[in-house]
């Protein structure tokens, strides 16, 4: 740090520095003296020298005066936050950008370097940040003929612009993941890449959300629901609102008739974990729901309302503490502790400060405030609450009196004291007020209700499933939309004709299935350990014993029930390739599958197992159709047969989403054993995925997920080349049917073998 120098010295220094900078930009010359003063304030002499050398280098990049000006302005700030030694990393970064087609982004990079450095206050962290940026740059810089990098990275400038906002919410690791996701998915799509890196696109926000630091609402929703139900006997739904994209207007928790609204993430604060902050916010709102009554607000000034809200909040908090004394420590940790002389009543409006102090005093017995009025009101407050919970109305009267008694002329000032007055676990108290008049505005329009959107065909809203991205080993959140529909119907007589065509096969199968039928109670004799003495055997053994022979020790019997408790889902791949004819018979694979499925369905129906059939096909990730052919509750009768008869094949095979959706239904069944049979004729593929090995990996991941749910997946593949990939997906749980003509016979047999 240098003190002010005599004018001559300053002039000499300025000239030396100007010479060292060696530039002739008039824009720079105009401000250089001031900039140098600021730099001298912030930098050591060595740092100043390095600063000037670096600036000289930037000035000679041939990119005009702007990068130089920005650097001269920003660097002292950066050095203050991250240390002077970070300069090497920055210069290295600039050098590499200059040598790539991304030189234009240098200005963007320097522009946000100071706010970034404030969030990453060490040279090492700043170095890592620049490494992430360079990684993004090298991986997205395009080339036309694949040899020389010629096209600048489309996302890089947006990334630099957004970097301070991103670092507010992400750790460096999270930022690296977020960048990596964007590069992987949008490297070849400049427009979408821009959307992603400027945090415009939906999945950019979703991935950002996933990588955020702090305690995420989504991870704790059930825990909070349990807390609300168990401790506060409230079961209103919990709804998260986003805090990521609302920098100006910080939303606070609130509740309305739809439920409790909470922020989507809470960082740990003041030694209180994010989870506890959620709990406290919930407890406070639940307390309002329990103890607060709405008041008519029309005749009260904003100041009065503010005071009423504050005291009512205190009343609720006091009652909460009364119920659960341990909450006091958490509440006080989160409650600001305004200094008694923290607000200058001559220049600023101090009402908020007075109320925050009162609020602190009401909750904290060791508040230490000496103001007599404040202590008097605290005493009156406690007296009011000494016997029972009091009421909102009584508290409002007290609050109004407090405003009147402590009123100061400065309360009307425009400059309002905000520091240390925000209690962030408290909600916005919108429930506390009812308005008789809807507003003063004359042009209040009649609220027009939006006309209901009408669909041509009634469809359920889609369910979204994640998809496994093997390259990053992570899920793409809510990636695939699955639509449930009933399969269109055909002529049920077709199925009956098919069954009669296979009458001999059906008879043979029936015999097999009869063997599978549960035998109710089975007696097992000749047991050493059993539940009952088998008297006949026992007496025989006794006679043997008495006559000197070795007696048979197995003289007991026991009973065993032999039941079958199994739920089956048959999932049919209904993609376009099913329409291919099978060489030998001239039938299409679809027709053969139809025959096989109807035999199997008939057989399982006679067996009495819970059984559903569904088909699936997909047309990009935005439209995966899941077609219900038979539900668990339906009998094997005309409507089901009609749907089976109407089986149609088109589009592609996005297997993972269909497996997850099928498992969603099967998992809800209450059965000991759950079997998910997949009948497919080819490998997973879809037209929006160029590399179908990704969909294979996703299907494998889906299989793992459903196995964890206690479901046994099994694949029957009709693709002779299936060995190459089906084992990757299903492990050893698959069969490849080579002779497709024999499918009608093989399918029921496989089912029997699987469930025997």
């Amino acid at each position, binding site marked *: 740090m240098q003190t002010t120098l005599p004018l001559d010295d300053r002039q000499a220094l300025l000239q030396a520095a100007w010479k060292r900078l060696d530039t002739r930009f008039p824009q720079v010359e105009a401000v250089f003296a001031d900039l140098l003063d600021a730099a001298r304030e912030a930098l050591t002499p060595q740092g100043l020298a390095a600063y000037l050398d670096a600036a000289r280098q930037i000035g000679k990049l041939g990119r005009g005066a702007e990068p130089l000006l920005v650097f001269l302005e920003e660097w002292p700030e950066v050095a203050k936050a991250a240390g002077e030694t970070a300069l090497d990393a920055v210069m290295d970064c600039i050098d590499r950008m200059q040598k790539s087609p991304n030189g234009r982004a240098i200005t963007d990079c320097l522009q946000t370097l100071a706010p970034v450095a404030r969030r990453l206050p060490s040279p090492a962290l700043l170095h890592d940040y620049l490494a992430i940026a360079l990684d993004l740059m090298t991986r997205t810089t395009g080339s036309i003929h694949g040899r020389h990098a010629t096209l600048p990275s489309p996302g890089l400038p947006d990334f630099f612009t957004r970097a301070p906002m991103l670092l507010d919410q992400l750790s460096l690791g999270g930022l690296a993941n977020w960048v990596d996701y964007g590069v992987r998915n949008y490297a070849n799509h400049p427009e979408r890449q821009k959307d992603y890196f400027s945090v415009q696109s939906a999945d950019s926000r979703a991935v950002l959300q996933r990588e955020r630091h702090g305690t995420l609402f989504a991870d704790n929703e*059930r*825990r909070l*629901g*349990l*807390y609300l*139900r*168990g*401790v506060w*006997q409230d079961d209103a739904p919990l709804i998260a609102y986003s805090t990521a994209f609302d920098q100006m207007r910080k939303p606070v928790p609130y509740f309305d008739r739809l439920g409790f609204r909470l922020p989507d993430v809470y960082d740990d604060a003041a030694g209180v974990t994010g*989870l*506890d902050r959620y*709990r406290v916010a919930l407890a406070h709102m639940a307390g309002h729901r329990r103890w607060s009554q709405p008041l008519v607000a029309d005749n009260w000034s904003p100041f009065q309302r503010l005071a009423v809200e504050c005291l009512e909040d205190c009343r609720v908090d006091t009652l909460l503490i009364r119920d*659960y*004394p*341990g*909450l*006091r*420590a*958490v509440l006080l940790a989160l409650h600001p502790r305004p200094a008694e002389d923290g607000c200058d009543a001559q220049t600023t409006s101090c009402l908020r400060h007075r109320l925050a102090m009162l609020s602190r005093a009401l909750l904290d017995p060791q508040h230490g405030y000496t103001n007599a009025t404040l202590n008097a009101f605290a005493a009156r407050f406690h007296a009011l609450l000494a016997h029972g919970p009091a009421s909102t109305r009584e508290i409002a009267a007290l609050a109004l009196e407090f405003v009147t008694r402590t009123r100061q002329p400065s309360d009307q000032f425009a400059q309002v004291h905000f520091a240390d007055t925000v209690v962030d676990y408290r909600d916005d108290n919108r429930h506390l007020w009812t308005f008789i008049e809807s507003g003063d505005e004359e042009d209040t329009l009649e609220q027009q209700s939006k006309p209901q959107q009408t669909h041509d065909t009634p469809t359920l809203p889609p369910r979204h499933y994640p998809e496994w991205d093997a390259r990053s080993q992570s899920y793409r959140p809510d990636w695939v939309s699955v639509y449930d529909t009933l399969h269109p119907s055909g002529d049920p007589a077709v199925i009956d004709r098919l069954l009669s065509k296979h009458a001999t096969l059906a008879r043979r199968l029936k015999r097999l299935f009869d063997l599978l039928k549960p035998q109710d*109670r089975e007696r097992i004799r000749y047991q050493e350990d059993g*539940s*009952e*003495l088998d*008297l006949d055997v*026992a*007496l025989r053994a*006794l006679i043997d014993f008495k006559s000197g022979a070795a007696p048979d020790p197995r*003289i007991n019997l026991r*009973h065993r029930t032999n039941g079958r408790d199994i739920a089956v889902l048959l999932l049919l791949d209904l993609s376009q390739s099913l329409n291919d004819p099978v060489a030998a018979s001239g039938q299409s694979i679809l027709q053969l599958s139809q025959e096989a499925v109807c035999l199997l369905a008939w057989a399982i129906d006679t067996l009495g197992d819970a059984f559903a059939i569904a088909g699936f096909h997909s047309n990009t990730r935005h439209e995966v159709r899941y077609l219900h052919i038979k539900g668990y509750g339906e009998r094997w009768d005309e409507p089901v047969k009609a749907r089976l008869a109407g089986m149609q094949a088109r589009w592609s095979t996005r297997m993972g989403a269909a497996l997850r959706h099928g498992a969603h239904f099967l998992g809800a069944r209450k059965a000991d054993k759950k079997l998910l049979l997949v009948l497919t004729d080819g490998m997973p593929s879809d037209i929006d995925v160029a590399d179908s090995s990704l969909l294979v990996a996703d299907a494998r991941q889906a299989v793992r997920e459903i196995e964890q749910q206690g479901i046994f997946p099994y694949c029957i593949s009709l693709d002779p080349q299936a060995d190459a990939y089906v084992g990757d997906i299903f492990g050893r749980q698959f069969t490849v049917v080579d002779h497709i003509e024999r499918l009608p016979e093989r399918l029921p047999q496989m089912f029997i073998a699987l469930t025997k």
Partner: protein
Amino acid sequence: MIDTDQYLVRQEPFYQPQGREVALFEAAYRKRLPVMVKGPTGCGKSRFVEYMAWKLGKPLITVACNEDMTAADLVGRYLLDANGTRWLDGPLTTAARIGAICYLDEVVEARQDTTVVIHPLTDHRRVLPLDKKGEQVQAHADFQLVISYNPGYQSVMKDLKPSTKQRFAAFDFDYPAPELEAAILARETGVAADIAAQLVKIGAVARRLKGHGLDEGISTRLLVYAASLIQDGVAPRDACGMALVAPITDDADIRSTLDHAIATTFA
């Protein structure tokens, strides 16, 4: 002969009536009606039966039912000895012979076809046919059958046959009201009234989570365990963790909720 004394309840068990159940039970006993005691686990069903046996001065034979129990385990079976076979009465037969109260605890745990053997004892016949032995046991005039059962298990498998249910007069038990439950804790363990009240409050938290990951809330019995641990000098939070949280759930979310309730209750 059979030593009847061993089945007598000698000391008065502590039982806190929740309503008129004592008088009603006495009335049922006067008419020798079979009685069913329903209620969640650990709410005092067995204690009530024990208390009534003491009050009526009758022997009590308790059978804890289980999945592997067969009709032979209740009625009796032939055993082998040096001279051939020997019949051994089961607990139900013994109770019918000596005129005891036979208490089948958690009767739904036994398989439904096992419980059918009690049917002839529970209607006007009051006999127990021993088909293997060829004997018809006429129940003693003092004999009464009591079963307990927990309707909380929402399972098709764990339920009584309608034909079994319709043979009993039933008492519906539930966890006692908070003040009563606190009084029970204090009386049973000698714990201070305020601690008893706090424990009851934690119990209530868990009971409200039933069906949201908990099959059963924290029972009065567990609260008594916690109270006796506290009475023995264990810190309340540790006692609660050990007696109230760890036994009932492995669900991390529920654990965390209960731990939080405990931490904020015992501040």
